């Protein structure tokens, strides 16, 4: 699964962030969850209890499922769907 930007959406200014050490271009106003989708990064972390090997990805998109937790600027367990991208943001995912 790898996403795409929709044509007739008005976008903010271009920003650069890094995801797992790799530079990624995005636009202000986009959520981190959306940007990860366009990059094809769907597996974001291991399941909390690690009873199963399967990874987890974003689910509800509205901040309640807590499934899209990633590390943002060194702070763990931040919800990607509730965070807008910023210039220089450093993101680490643990979806293996």
């Amino acid at each position, binding site marked *: *699964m*790898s*996403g*795409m*930007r*929709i*044509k*007739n*959406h*008005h*976008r*903010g200014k271009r920003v650069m962030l890094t995801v797992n050490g790799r530079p990624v271009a995005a636009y202000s*106003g*986009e*959520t981190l*969850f*959306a*940007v990860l*989708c*366009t990059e094809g990064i*769907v*597996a*974001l972390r291991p*399941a*909390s*209890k690690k*009873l*199963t090997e*399967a*990874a*987890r*990805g*974003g*689910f*509800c*998109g*509205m*901040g*309640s*499922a*807590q*499934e899209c*937790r990633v590390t943002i600027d060194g*702070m763990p*367990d931040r919800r990607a*769907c*509730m965070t*807008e991208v910023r210039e220089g943001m450093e993101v680490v995912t643990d*979806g*293996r």
Partner: protein
Amino acid sequence: MDDRTVDVAIVGGGLAGAAAADVLGRHGASVLVLDDNLHPGGQYLRGGRQSGGSWSDRVRRRGLRLIEHLPQSSVEIASRAEVLGIEAGFKLMVARGNGELSTVTCKRILLATGARERFIPFKGWTLPGVMATGAFQILIKQSGILPAKETLVAGAGLFLTAVARDIQKSGGRVPAVLSESSFFQQVPPPSLLARQFAKFAQGGGMLGRLRLAGTAVRNGTRILEARGDDSLREVVAVRVDKKGKVIPDSETVYSAGSLAAGFGFTANVELAQLAGCGLAFTSQLGGWVVKVNEDLETSVDGIHAAGEITAIGGAAKSLTEGRLAGVGILRRMGLLAPDELKAEISALKEMRQRQMAFARYFNSQYMFPPEYLAGWIRSLPDDVSVCRCEEVSLGAIRRAVAEGYDTPAAIKKATRCGMGICQGSTCKTILLEVLSALTGKPLSHIPLPSVRMPIKPTYLGTLAGGVP
């Protein structure tokens, strides 16, 4: 945000909250809207004017205008503000996005906390690539991004068609819409058809356009399993009969990297429950909702409620109720004479009745009769996950019920179902429905698990008074 004192605190900055803030602010009340999202407007107005399309949507246009023109001298909107609890005298404990904790003191509260999606689980629903229907709409509207070029849409209810159309209009392909219920399975009563003809015509039009674009629309079809290793690869669907029984040898395998799954909605009643407001389970209203009178007052003096938490009913109903609740609060505060706005109020009340009639039909498309739902849940295999956070399977709950644990509270203790980081926001309705199916008790007789402060996941640093 420093500690604040206002006349009215509104929890939720969606259409209901905004409509109430507008009328309250224009009649001299000081209002603070506490909204947990990045931007006001709730789920319906996500993306604001940045979002392309949807300009034929009259409710959306009205809502955007409303929020852009809120009276600034009397109404303040606090975004990224999560209300963690309500104390007597009305003190609200609020966590801000920057990690600060503050207190808001107010005379009256309007709860307009909206709804979230309801799920009926299937094997593999925790795989990355399986997402809620609402997540697709949010990604499209707020960020202008489609998570995949091709998306399968499945579940139950009229919302599936709308999501599939949004994906299509954004340039995505929808190979199929698989729905447990049929659009016309429960034929709407003629009086409702006549009064809400535009809505049904819109629904029919959407179906037509989906089919024209090559989308297969399959009714009476259920997701059996989502398969994949690191992420979704294929979806197995089966046909079901009118009673919800799986038809043998009816499996179809769809190759899919992206699945939008939705089974209707459930109201965010937790804060109302914490405040002691009376709740009721009414299937036609979308399950557990806050009980209100026709002026949108809850059973707790000084606490009012509007929008999805009084009945799942959509954006237009939320606008109507927000305004009605606002007027009711003004009356109680003595800021409106008894005969002021009289004609408008009776018109709003009439409109609300029409919107409630449509809500009952909408909700009947995904709530299902008790025996239908119970049979469905009993047919699910043991390895279906119920609680995503704590990885509690249906089998674990079956064993606990067999050992005599038969309330949500007891099941939580026995299995940890609902005790994870999302605090049960995803699995609570599932657990209630599973318990009803396994014990044979009606859903209205299964007590909601109790809620405690903080009602939302919070960083310890915030509670300790520091910035995490």
